[in-house]
């Protein structure tokens, strides 16, 4: 291609741009103005989409139709189980977790052995995946750069080795620029998010071009494909094995979290838990968009190249080239390069951290060399180890590519890695939710799963490429057929991935659970299990303080921090810690359990929790806590928690009870006041007639010469006031009985019409005396109500006597009407008296509040008739009220509900 050197220039420029973006992101982070927004976080998760997605999916679709989608549907479902991710993030933040190996090791008692095992599995497992990237980029590079079909070479090195070397240099420059390796890499995450955008745009551009320019849209493509019998089967899922589909779904759901680079971006690089809220749908949306055109591209490639032997894994490049769109091919190459570099950078950084912290450090810590080494600052060493690890991992990737890469399509290679990292799932998820899981169990489970994976997946991949003898795959080792690598115990009929997943999980989970149940955890494991499983409860680090006992010197601790973090960072951390504890000079800090915990987690950030623990115990004289002691402390802690929760709820109950008491007291006080008022009023009402009686009696007694007219007048007054007094006392007693609920009620069928007529007859003489007209309107057919006949009569008599009292003599008119009003009988007593104002209408039902101001009315009433009547009516479930206006008479109305008919 003529554009070869031009392409090289663009690639260099693109990588330079990535550098600039990462720099900018880091600068912003240093300035405290992070540019990691929820969107950036979500895009950075799309580092999941590698060359596999960019190149491999199309290749896969040419043979498997839509089955390539499982790799993206699994992660979509996984994202919905966001609670698991949040718990993982919470734990990692609380205990300064730096990698997936660190996470697992920390959970199972900060075990160096376990950390090393996880690291080995991760490196071996991921190497094929890195080889995949190399293969894809090399293929693309050869296509664009080489002169059509002649692989490019330079000084005897093939393209792949050159690309591996270039990527190693780039990653070392890019990912380990910082001396400190503990903090988050915000610049890196920003650059990865940018790369995600580039690869999405590039892929969609090619998709749109092929679909709408080279063909006439989706419909056209699908129709033309349907016309060919070979292509038509790609448009259905027929011929797919459900077992494969489901295995891939499960595998990808696990891989999206447990691949070292995914764990890095999702968990370690997470700035804020709330970012997940966006990622939970934006990341799946990204996956959906980047996959829409995969099948159209595959079909387009197959249709366009027909029978020619074109590599479907690079259709993304060859299709635009075939249509003469070289610029688009170049854009696609940049997109593919983005996908590959993003994956390689993050994956190797994550792996190199693991290799450094969990493989090399433990060896160094044991070696005499480190002890002899006088240099106090080891942080430069840490960095060097990481850089070497990056180079080594890429070298391994290249070696695998040479050994096995040619025999597989891209996706096939990637799935080998997926199956490897899936082995982490049982111990990691189990560790988060199952306290009984032990280190022995985790070791057993991981080892068993890994061995089965290696035997059924990795080894056959070498065999397939002819690098080793394939006999054990086809015939079984030493001819033992039930040990055939891809049909263990005769389990045939499955594809290799499902076969591997089934057997490796069976071994993994079986060993993990079985051994966990059979072994007893040590003190440290119990403590860690508690912290991981109950991370949401240990918001305060209470148990951390209790689970460490011993002493250490500040000088030694400081030297230790300086050694691994570097002098400046160590001082920064100490200053921050001192400030948090209100100590001006960190040299005055007390070396207590909390300080030791702080130092250990600061170290853990740099060298992993297992190594950090070893280092801290090397300088701190630690009192060894026995398992029983730890269990006791945890027991106490949980008891304390239970107590405090109980206490809290008791306190709440107490507060509620206090409030209730206060309210009751207020009510009582109010009642007391009302009673006081009532007694005062009653006293007044009783004293008034007594006053007249006493005055009259004394006057008659003192002066026997009073004339007869006055004498009989006075005696008359005494008699009527005595009557008033008796009436008053009776009504007060009646009222008291009604109010206290001690009144005796009878209940019988009462015919209201009869009752009204009788009451009217009783009072007829009163009306006749005052010459007041009394009329009624009573229908014939009225159903009976359930009530106390005497009480109801009392109400009616009260209303009638009130009416006759207030109407003017001579022209007064009172009319009683009875009617059915909805579910009740309604009785109205209307008069043409002076009427009541709105205020009066309200108060006349209160005790001792009489209507009317004129002197003549006064002695007649006690002020208790209406309140008593209301009590009676309300007892039967009815209502008593007045409708009136001044000068327009008053109508007193009461209702008595009709009995509810039996249903």
């Amino acid at each position, binding site marked *: 291609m003529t554009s070869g050197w031009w392409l090289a220039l663009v690639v260099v420029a693109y990588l330079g741009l990535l550098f600039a973006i990462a720099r900018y992101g880091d600068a912003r982070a240093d300035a405290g103005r992070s540019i990691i927004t929820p969107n950036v976080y979500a895009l950075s998760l799309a580092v999941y989409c590698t060359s596999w997605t960019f190149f491999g999916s199309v290749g896969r679709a040419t043979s498997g139709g839509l089955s390539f989608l499982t790799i993206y549907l699994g992660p979509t*479902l996984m994202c919905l189980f966001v*609670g698991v991710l949040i718990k993982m993030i919470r734990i990692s933040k609380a205990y300064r977790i730096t990698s997936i190996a660190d996470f697992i090791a920390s959970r199972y008692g900060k075990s160096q052995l376990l950390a090393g095992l996880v690291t080995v599995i991760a490196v071996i497992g991921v190497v094929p995946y890195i080889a995949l990237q190399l293969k894809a980029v090399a293929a693309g590079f050869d296509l664009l750069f080489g002169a059509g079909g002649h692989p490019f070479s330079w000084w005897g090195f093939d393209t792949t080795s050159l690309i591996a070397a270039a990527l190693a240099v780039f990653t070392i420059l890019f990912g380990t620029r910082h001396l400190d390796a503990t903090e988050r890499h915000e610049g890196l995450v920003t650059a990865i998010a940018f790369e995600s955008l580039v690869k999405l745009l590039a892929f969609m551009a090619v998709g749109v071009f092929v679909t709408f320019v080279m063909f006439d849209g989706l419909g056209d493509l699908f129709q033309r494909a349907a016309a060919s019998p070979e292509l038509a089967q790609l448009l259905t899922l027929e011929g797919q094995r*459900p077992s494969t589909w*489901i295995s891939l779904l499960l595998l990808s759901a696990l891989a999206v979290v447990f691949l070292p680079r995914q764990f890095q971006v999702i968990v370690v690089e997470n700035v804020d838990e709330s970012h997940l*809220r966006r990622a939970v749908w934006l990341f799946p949306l990204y996956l959906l968009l980047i996959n829409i055109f995969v099948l159209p591209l595959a079909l387009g490639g197959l249709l366009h190249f027909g029978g020619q032997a074109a590599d479907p894994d690079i259709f993304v490049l060859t299709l635009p080239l075939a249509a003469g769109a070289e610029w688009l091919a170049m854009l696609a190459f940049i997109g593919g390069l983005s996908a590959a570099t993003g994956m390689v950078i993050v994956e190797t950084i994550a792996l190199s951290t693991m290799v450094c912290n969990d493989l090399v450090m433990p060896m160094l810590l044991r070696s005499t060399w480190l002890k002899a080494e006088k240099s106090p600052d080891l942080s430069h060493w840490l960095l060097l180890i990481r850089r070497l690890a990056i180079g080594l991992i890429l070298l391994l990737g290249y070696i695998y590519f040479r050994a096995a890469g040619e025999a597989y399509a891209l996706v096939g290679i990637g799935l080998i890695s997926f199956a490897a990292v899936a082995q982490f799932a049982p111990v990691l998820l189990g560790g988060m939710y199952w306290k009984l899981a032990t280190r022995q169990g985790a070791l057993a489970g991981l080892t068993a799963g890994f061995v089965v994976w290696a035997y059924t997946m990795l080894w056959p991949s070498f065999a397939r490429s002819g690098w080793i003898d394939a006999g054990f795959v086809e015939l079984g080792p030493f001819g033992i057929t039930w040990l055939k690598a891809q049909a263990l115990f005769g389990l045939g009929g499955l594809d290799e991935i499902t076969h591997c997943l089934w057997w490796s999980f069976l071994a993994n989970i079986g060993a993990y659970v079985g051994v966990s149940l059979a072994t007893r955890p040590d003190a440290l494991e119990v403590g860690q299990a508690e912290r991981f499983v109950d991370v949401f409860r240990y918001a305060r680090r209470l148990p951390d303080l209790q689970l460490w006992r011993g002493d250490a010197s500040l000088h030694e601790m400081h030297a230790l921090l300086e050694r691994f973090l570097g002098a400046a960072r160590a001082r920064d951390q100490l200053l921050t810690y001192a400030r948090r504890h209100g100590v001006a000079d960190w040299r005055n800090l007390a070396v207590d359990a909390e300080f030791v915990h702080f130092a250990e987690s600061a170290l853990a950030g740099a060298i992993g929790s297992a190594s950090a623990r070893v280092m801290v115990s090397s300088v701190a004289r630690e009192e060894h806590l026995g398992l029983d002691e730890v269990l006791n402390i945890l027991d106490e802690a949980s008891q304390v928690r239970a107590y405090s929760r109980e206490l809290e709820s008791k306190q709440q109950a107490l507060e509620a009870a206090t409030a209730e008491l206060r309210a009751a007291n207020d009510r009582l006080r109010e009642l007391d006041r009302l009673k006081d008022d009532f007694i005062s009023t009653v006293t007044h009402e009783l004293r008034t007639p007594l006053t007249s009686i006493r005055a009259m009696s004394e006057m008659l007694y003192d002066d026997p010469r009073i004339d007869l007219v006055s004498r009989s007048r006075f005696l008359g007054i005494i008699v009527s006031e005595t009557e008033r007094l008796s009436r008053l006392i009776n009504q007060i007693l009646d009222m008291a009985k009604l109010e206290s609920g001690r009144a005796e009620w009878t209940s019988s069928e009462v015919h209201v019409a009869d009752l009204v007529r009788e009451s009217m007859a009783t009072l007829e003489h009163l009306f006749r005396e005052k010459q007041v007209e009394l009329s009624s309107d009573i229908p014939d057919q009225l159903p009976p109500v359930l009530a106390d006949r005497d009480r109801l009569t009392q109400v009616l008599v009260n209303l009638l006597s009130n009416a006759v009292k207030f109407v003017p003599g001579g022209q007064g008119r009172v009319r009683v009407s009875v009617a059915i009003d909805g579910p009740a009988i309604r009785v109205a007593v209307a008069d043409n008296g002076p009427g009541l104002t709105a205020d009066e209408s309200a108060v006349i039902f209160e005790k001792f509040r009489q209507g009317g101001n004129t002197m003549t009315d006064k002695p007649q009433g006690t002020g208790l008739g209406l309140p008593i009547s209301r009590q009676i009516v309300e007892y039967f479930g009815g209502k008593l009220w007045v409708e009136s206006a001044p000068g327009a008479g008053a109508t007193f109305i009461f209702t008595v509900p009709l009995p509810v008919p039996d249903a």
Partner: protein
Amino acid sequence: MKNANPARQRLVALGLLGIPLLSYPVLGLPQGDWLGLPAIFVYLFGVWGGLIAGAAWLAERQGR
């Protein structure tokens, strides 16, 4: 934040709904053409998009 977060639980419910919709035997159902496109293509992307929209709605609602 407690474990029993209602939005998280709704998302999990959505995930539990998605599992049967995106695996066998339901996947055997879409046959032939829908809207001029292969039925399974429309079905897979439709369900997928629906899950994403549901997740977006649940996750981004105020008050989580």
